């Protein structure tokens, strides 16, 4: 075991006990290939233990507060349709899939899909589509060095399963809602998502995370995404969990020849947030755009780790992360780009900008480039600081008050990300949110 602290060990053991309870409940499924993956994963997790700050990937992120909490495994939970209302997005109300505490809520979900398209809860779908799930689940995400992904795999039961067949274009964006509602004790939940776009298909996905109560809970997501040849996936994730919650999310995307994958992450909630976004190009001429925006206040810790693997030639990646850090918050950005030998004609660009609003906020940024091919254009840039004085001066010299000028500049900073969101209703909602925050 890599983490040898006895205290952390005890926390690990609590999770392992929960796993044994889960196993007892699953007696009907205990011989499936899915369950074999779970068993392997809990073994891996037991070996790895929870990460600590001596590990390079966790250098700036202390998960100590998480380890102090006592969680129980989430169970199915009901919420009212009315409770869902504030989280719905204009125009997408009739195209939604709802999860409550990590479990698929069929009654609250509404969607109409062309024939051949599969959108279902993973647990339910395993009865009818076991072969598809067994083929893909856990195949893309490596859990050997990721304790949280291992933990997710061990407890993986429900989540979204999306399978879009060849040459099918879904016009209307699909809204995935993950609602957390703590009943009595804080829960830990491990939703597992599998999104497969076959050749030539297209999908636009809005994933949003909300809470009904400002409580402590622990959501640990894993999403595996396969974007087939010439397919296109737009994925927007809005995370607005409880300020006391722990949100860990690992995403592994494989992008095939001529495919496009656009990922946008907006992070507002969570006591500790950790995103691990890995994108791997598997075919030439593929393209990925990775956008991120975060706004941390209070003592929030927001950690974005991204990894773009240019394994094949002629691919483009473009990454832009922007964030505000207020109060005593702490931001972490680690963006790695790997260009493997022979991945010639790669274009990889990365930008990371952070603004510290308060004197007590901290940002730790680490953009990385690892390049093993010569005919490439790669760059990264990072800027950290306040608003620029000359911008402020420009506005003030035109008679705009300091507060107002600052608000305008902050909104403009955020808009750099928002204006790239193509779904109007989502963009307007976010813009309104940020204007409200800066009292514009």
């Amino acid at each position, binding site marked *: 075991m890599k983490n040898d602290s006895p205290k952390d060990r005890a926390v690990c053991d609590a999770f392992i006990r929960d796993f044994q309870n889960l196993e007892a409940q699953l007696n009907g499924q205990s011989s499936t290939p899915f369950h074999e993956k779970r068993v392997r994963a809990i073994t891996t997790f037991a070996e790895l233990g929870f990460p600590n700050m001596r590990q390079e990937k966790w250098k700036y992120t202390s998960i100590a507060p998480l380890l102090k909490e006592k969680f129980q495994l989430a169970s199915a939970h009901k919420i009212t349709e009315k409770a869902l209302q504030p989280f719905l997005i204009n125009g997408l109300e009739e195209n939604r899939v709802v999860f409550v505490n990590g479990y698929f809520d069929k009654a609250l979900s509404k969607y109409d899909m062309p024939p051949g398209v599969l959108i279902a809860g993973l647990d339910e779908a395993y009865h009818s589509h076991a072969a598809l799930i067994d083929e893909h689940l856990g195949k893309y995400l490596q859990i050997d060095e990721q304790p949280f992904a291992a933990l997710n795999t061990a407890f993986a039961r429900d989540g979204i399963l999306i399978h879009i067949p060849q040459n099918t274009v879904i016009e209307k964006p699909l809204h995935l809602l993950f609602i957390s509602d703590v009943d009595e004790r804080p829960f830990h939940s491990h939703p597992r998502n599998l999104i497969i776009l076959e050749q030539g298909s297209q999908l636009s996905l809005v994933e949003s995370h909300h809470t009904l109560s400002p409580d402590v809970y622990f959501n640990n997501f894993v999403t595996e995404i396969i974007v087939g040849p010439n397919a296109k996936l737009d994925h927007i994730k809005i995370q607005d969990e409880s300020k006391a919650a722990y949100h860990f999310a690992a995403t592994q995307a494989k992008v095939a020849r001529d495919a496009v994958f656009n990922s946008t992450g907006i992070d507002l909630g969570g006591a500790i947030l950790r995103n691990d976004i890995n994108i791997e190009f598997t075919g030439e001429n593929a393209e990925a755009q990775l956008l991120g925006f975060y706004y941390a206040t209070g003592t929030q810790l927001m950690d974005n780790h991204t990894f773009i693997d240019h394994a094949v030639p002629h691919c483009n990646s473009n990454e832009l992360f922007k964030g505000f850090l207020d109060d005593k918050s702490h931001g972490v950005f680690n963006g790695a780009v790997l260009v493997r*030998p022979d991945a010639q004609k790669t274009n990889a660009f990365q930008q990371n900008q952070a603004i510290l609003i*308060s*004197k007590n906020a901290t*940002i*730790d940024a680490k953009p*990385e*480039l690892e*390049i093993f091919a010569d005919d490439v254009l790669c760059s990264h840039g*990072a*800027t950290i600081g306040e608003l620029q004085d000359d911008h402020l001066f420009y506005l003030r010299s035109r008679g705009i008050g300091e507060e107002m000028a600052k608000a305008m500049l902050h909104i403009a900073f955020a808009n750099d990300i928002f204006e790239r969101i193509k779904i109007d209703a989502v963009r307007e909602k976010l813009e309104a949110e940020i204007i409200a925050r800066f009292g514009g």
Partner: protein
Amino acid sequence: MPKPPAKNDYDDKFGSAEEQQTVENLTKSEYKWGFTTDIETDMAPKGLNENIVRFISAKKEEPEWLLQWRLKAFRHWQKMVEPKWPNVKYPPIDFQNAYYYAAPKPQKQLESLDEVDPKLRETFDKLGISIMEQKRLSNVAVDAVMDSVSVATTFQGELKKHGIIFGAFSEAVKNHPELVRKYLGSVVPYTDNFYAALNSAVFSDGSFCYIPKGVRCPMELSTYFRINAANTGQFERTLIVADEGANVSYLEGCTAPMRDENQLHAAVVEIYVHKEAQVKYSTVQNWYPGDENGVGGVYNFVTKRAITHENAKVSWTQVETGSAITWKYPSVILKGDNSIGEFYSVALTNNYQQADTGTKMMHLGKNTRSTIISKGISAGKSQNSYRGLVRVGKNAENARNFSQCDSLLIGDQCGAHTFPYLEIKNPTAQVEHEATTSKIGDDQIFYLLQRGISEEDAINMIVNGYCKEVFRELPMEFAVEAQKLLAVSLEGSVG
């Protein structure tokens, strides 16, 4: 972060008052007896233990406090583990299977340059090193007029006039123990890292330089004029102290290829910069990089650090072309308000060389500024990494950093990597980091080729242009040599 030494208080470095007293007594009693330890051999036995450390210290006739300091460093080193984080690969080093002290062996005197390895001479010619200098470097007996001893003495006299102390470390320990004792380990404590601890325990020799208050050193201080420290061995220790308002430019190394049998080099350079003082430290490193197949070559694991007080300035400039493995991060602790740190680097790797190099800028004082310009060039099958840290502390109001790290790849077998770390705790800080990686543009080469310039020359021109930002920070004669050095180091990487 090491505390600056308080006046006449060595507590943090040399133990408690009682310990110091003991040391004091021991030192005094030793004087009575003198250093009578009879050392017949000129070589310490293989391996590393406390006796070896004592042996080295005795050989150098060091005072007791220094021996104790070495021993403390050694005991600390034993508890440390070798760092594994650098992005370099090499077989494990057996620290017990090495010699830690060998008296400088007199090299065979050659009668004329004709006896020198023709390959070496070819390189000398390409670098444009004068015949006289070539003779000196390859240990050919030189006539009295050009005797470097006399040159050196002239300069020594000049330095003395200004009160500048400049010489071998071991001599400084004898002649200026109070200065050495005050500053040794004040910037790089023996606890700092694995190789710094090893160096502290077994350092062979090095240079010591002290510039008194308000003195501007009249010449560039260079190992070039310093024959007494020519054989500094593999664990070199340099200590530079610039007192208030002093100004010095220090040159280390030489563009000429250095053949050395020692594979492991772990040097430490400490620079203590008082208020208003300025130090410029330039390095050209061209140790043996191993052959075309990556066999042999020097492992160069260096700790270099400076600390600056109010309104002081430190500038590191380095041209790194040698060594099989380079592992080196010249750093600046910007402690005083308004102090400035600069880092200009060209790191070139060819064949199977590996470099993991960069800098650390720790902004602690207000209005501190730092600039980082790093140019990496990888060719052949080499791996070249930039690793840098910019840290802005909570109280470093209005700190400013600009970093630019460019990598150039020549050929598709090599790698270029960038690992910058930015840790910012103050909202008024302005930190900018930029990095780009690319190859030499086909259109650039085509342009030069069609004007009748050969491909090799074209690449040299482009590479030199690419490094210009760094070269112009080098002292004049170094800059000229450095350009030629790049050309030599890139040989065979084209076509």
